[in-house]
């Protein structure tokens, strides 16, 4: 395999956890829920899937538990912010603390353990006929593991849901103005719950990808800020799941650049800070030019029907 092919292939692998978490957070924010617990939900997904695979040796069960673990985190968040109207920022931060604690405590006995031999076959690449024969790019992009294809499909499905289905347009309406959506007999709470929970599940899948494919063994610092980069990516991708694919690839590339190139030491620290710097710049420019969209209008605000 040529250097370029291997490099592109690694960028894609590095981008998938970011992509899953970002698309999840987009779904959540689209219905007005800014969930700053992404890092925590990814950790829940990572430990849930790792422990499942470690004990049952069943890859698919592990992925499912990863999804459900992230979803469980989002359920705490959703119950507090949607049903009990708690503050979104504080609830999300608490969820990150919670996920960090749970992953560290439950993972204490398996630190350094690897995913079992029989299971690692699922991270083997599956070449797509014809496409994988394209020089350089083919073997990099179209010869990935099954989880990677699955992630792209999920991102595209999220886009189709939001832009092409009535339900999805209703979800967007809920995030823009829940009172108006409510008046047009859209079930606001149901939309908020469903998308927030699925969003958490996606973050959990991102965590599962880390512990089952990327690393693939247990260390408590397994997510190391990827959840926060996902929060940043939502803004970078302008709340669009398709742009999230592009954004995750760029940020994923940045995250492995220093390990793969012969940069000066100072340069690597600047590159490490780039995702955050870029987000700051995007955020500031978006607010300067008011014409650009700066996210769903009701983002961060609890909806209280009786106040309508």
């Amino acid at each position, binding site marked *: 395999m040529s250097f370029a092919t291997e490099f592109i292939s690694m960028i894609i692998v590095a981008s998938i956890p970011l992509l899953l978490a970002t698309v999840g957070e987009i779904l959540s924010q689209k219905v007005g829920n800014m969930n700053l617990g992404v890092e925590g939900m990814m950790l829940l997904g990572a430990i849930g899937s790792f422990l499942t695979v470690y004990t049952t040796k069943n890859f698919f069960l592990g992925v499912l538990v990863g999804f459900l673990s992230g979803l469980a985190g989002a359920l705490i968040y959703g119950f507090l912010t949607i049903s009990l109207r*708690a503050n979104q920022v504080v609830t999300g*931060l608490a969820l990150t603390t919670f996920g960090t604690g749970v992953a560290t*405590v439950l993972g204490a006995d398996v630190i350094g353990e690897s995913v079992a031999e029989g299971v690692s076959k699922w991270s083997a690449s599956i070449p797509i006929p014809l496409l994988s024969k394209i020089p350089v790019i083919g073997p990099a992009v179209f010869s990935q593991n099954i989880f990677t294809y699955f992630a792209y499909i999920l991102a595209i499905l999220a886009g189709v849901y939001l832009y092409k289905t009535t339900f999805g347009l209703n979800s967007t309406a809920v995030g823009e103005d829940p009172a108006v959506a409510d008046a047009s007999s859209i079930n606001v709470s149901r939309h908020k719950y469903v998308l927030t929970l699925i969003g958490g599940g996606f973050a959990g899948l991102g965590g599962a990808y880390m512990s089952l494919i990327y690393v693939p063994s247990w260390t408590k610092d397994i997510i190391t800020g990827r959840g926060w980069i996902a929060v940043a990516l939502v803004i970078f991708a302008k709340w669009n799941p398709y742009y999230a694919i592009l954004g995750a690839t760029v940020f994923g590339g940045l995250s492995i650049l220093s390990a793969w190139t012969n940069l000066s030491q100072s340069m690597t620290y600047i590159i490490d800070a780039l995702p955050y710097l870029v987000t700051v710049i995007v955020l500031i420019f978006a607010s300067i030019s008011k014409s650009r969209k700066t996210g769903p209008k009701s983002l961060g605000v609890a909806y209280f029907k009786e106040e309508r």
Partner: protein
Amino acid sequence: MSLQLIKRGRVALKNQIIIKLAAVVMAFAAIAVFLLFMKQNPLLVYKEIFTGSLSGAYNIRQTITKAIPICICGLGLSIAYKMNFWNIGAEGQMMIGAIGASIIGIFSPLSGPVGIVIMCLMGMIFGGAWAFLTAFFKVKWGTNETILTLMLNYIALKIVTYLQYVAWKDPAAMGFPKIADFPSEIRLPSIFGINIGWLIAITLTVIIYLYMKKSKLGYEAAVIGNSEATAKYIGMNTTKTILITIFISGAICGLAGAIQASTVNRTLSTDFTQNAGNLAIIVAWVANLHPILIAVISVLFAALIQGSDTIQMSFAISPAISEIIQATVLFFVLGSEFFLKFRIKMRKHTGSKEEVKA
């Protein structure tokens, strides 16, 4: 039958405290279930957390030392939150403040009481300036301060990482990536075996209390927190108030960073904050932004952390259990606020439509 929510008016302080205490009790009950699932006796674990943090002079000193940065940052954040300005950047402001303090403490010949004062002032100016950046973009273009302060935390962390591994790496450390220690002459002195940060924290608690209750700036910030439109309508210079308040907010967090790095950690490193800036957010919130409660709850949270550090020795359980406890307590307190804000009324479905709009 269906449920209907009705907004409550002000709830008496006594009832607020009862509801919140009930939430804390329920949180500990929930964690007890988790501990049972981990095959631990929750009562023994709780007892160990208590004795490991609040019995014996050594443990109490450790607990207070841990409470100092949480309390100071919590106070700093509270004045921003009163204004409804979501500064979640205490971690970053602590780090940048500590960089300012290092310039004086490590790289200047200043020392003694004068040096310590100048070092702390530098910490405040640096931390304040870092927070001011966000406030500037917020008042100028309405940039979302939550995400901005959050991102600036990570940028601050990368700056400290760069300083530790490259620019300020101590040549005397034989290749080990660390910054030189603060000389002992520039560390804060101790009273009762605890660095005088505790005196600073208590003084600040009183100052912030007076600031919120008596000062014009504190009053204006509270009005803006309630409604920025109202504040503008009655002729307040909201831009000025926001910029000054957030500078002070960041400066207080910067002070916490200066104390923590110079005196407790004794050098600037990537992990010197011990997550105090993030804990302060939780503490400020649980305390309902009340300065005295912030001080008390900081000590309780610090006790939880200190106690959890000690349970590792007697039980096969990670000290990270303290993170689970912190988060669970916060979940229950957040949930309990619902019952302070709303009343639930059962309603039969026979009434006219008008009844729905309470």
